[in-house]
């Protein structure tokens, strides 16, 4: 558990560096040219409830007017002046490809409400504007997505302590939102164990096709993946309704998928044949009473496979 928390915190930290300003910024910037009057800026602020308006000439940021500038203009009676004379000209900007951590540091240090975003370092071309709120809400969304991901993994996979290497995933009928989660999780475990990419690829195909078949064609079931020293064993069991003609189901192109399923890109009738060709050993049993059970083995150490071939 502690390990999981650590990983989550590390992920959030990584996120802060990975998320770029252009991913969170607001692209619809309300701006005025430097020929606008202070009053026009004030009306714009009032209408949009902004506390600062960037001044843009020909797409380039020329300055910024804050609510303080407007108050001073009223005080000193130059509210009808053009803004060019009174705006803050050396505006702190941020290039769009910078990470949000840089933006966060600027907000912390200078207490700005917003930072204008420019196309690239050294240019003044305004492409957006970013507030601290924008960053927070994007981050929150990402953290939520990650938390959900971990929750699913937590509830879906029970690690068998005695063996230390069996992963079990419950698979729910018709749940397309979680489709692929079990397979992507397994793929990560295999990559962590430095299993050859080509072998990981084959196991991923088997897991994914099995997972999708249970989601699409069955009433639900589970997948159990055993990672042993020299092989990975994948067992998929569902609760029915069973496959009436196994031989037919194994034929490339045979499918009973309906129009809706096909519109999602499933139903080529290639899942089972692909699983079989990716496995070193493959067996499928199906009963109209109890459901379908598939067992697939992929060797992770090359010479075992050769030994096996010599035997047969």
């Amino acid at each position, binding site marked *: 558990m502690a390990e999981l928390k650590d990983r989550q915190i590390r992920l959030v930290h990584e996120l802060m560096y990975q998320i770029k300003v252009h991913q969170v910024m607001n692209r619809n910037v309300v701006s005025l040219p430097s020929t606008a009057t202070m009053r026009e800026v004030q009306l714009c602020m009032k209408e949009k409830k902004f506390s600062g308006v960037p001044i843009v000439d020909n797409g380039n940021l020329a300055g910024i007017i804050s609510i303080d500038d407007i108050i001073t203009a009223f005080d000193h009676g130059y509210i009808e002046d053009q803004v060019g004379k009174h705006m803050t000209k050396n505006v702190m900007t941020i290039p769009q490809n910078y990470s949000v951590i840089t933006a966060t540091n600027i907000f912390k240090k200078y207490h700005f409400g917003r930072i204008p975003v420019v196309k690239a370092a050294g240019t003044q071309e305004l492409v957006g504007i970013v507030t601290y709120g924008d960053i927070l809400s994007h981050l929150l969304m990402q953290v939520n997505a990650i938390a959900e991901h971990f929750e699913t993994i937590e509830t879906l996979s029970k690690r068998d302590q005695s063996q230390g290497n069996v992963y079990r995933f419950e698979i729910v009928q018709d749940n397309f939102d979680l489709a692929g989660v079990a397979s*992507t999780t397994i*793929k990560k475990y295999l990559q962590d164990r430095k299993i050859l990419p080509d072998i990981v690829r084959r196991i991923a195909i088997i897991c994914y096709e099995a997972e999708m078949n249970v989601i699409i064609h069955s009433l639900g079931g589970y997948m159990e993946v055993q990672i042993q020293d020299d092989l990975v064993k994948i067992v998929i069991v569902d609760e029915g309704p069973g496959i009436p003609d196994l031989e037919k189901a194994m034929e490339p192109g045979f499918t009973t998928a309906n129009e809706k399923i096909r519109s999602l890109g*499933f139903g080529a009738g*290639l899942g089972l044949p*692909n699983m079989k060709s990716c496995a070193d050993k493959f067996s499928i049993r199906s009963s109209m009473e109890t459901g379908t059970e598939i067992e697939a083995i992929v060797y992770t150490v090359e010479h075992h496979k050769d030994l096996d071939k010599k035997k047969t």
Partner: protein
Amino acid sequence: MKLRQFAEELSLKTYCADEKHLEAEVTTAYSGDLLSDVMAHVPHGAAWFTVLAHLNIVAVAQLRDVACIVIVNGSEPDKQTIDKAISQKVALFGSPENSAPLCMKIGGKL
């Protein structure tokens, strides 16, 4: 060709791509709308062109380590799909064009 250049040459719309994605090599392209076909055959590092725009394309792309997904024919991914692409670190683009003209444009250059 770097993914950055690939996306520029084909004027793709970016839904999700970070620096690491953009610096990665696109080695070839693959066009497919049947997930189990793509799952079995898409080459590692390929740009995958598809008309499918729903959530499940992200898992396939992630499992097969493609360089990116390009949703063609102007199909638009929904927010859930984009969020999933972001969280799974899968580069996701879009184009109003069909796979065939896109592949012809990029063909000899990869």
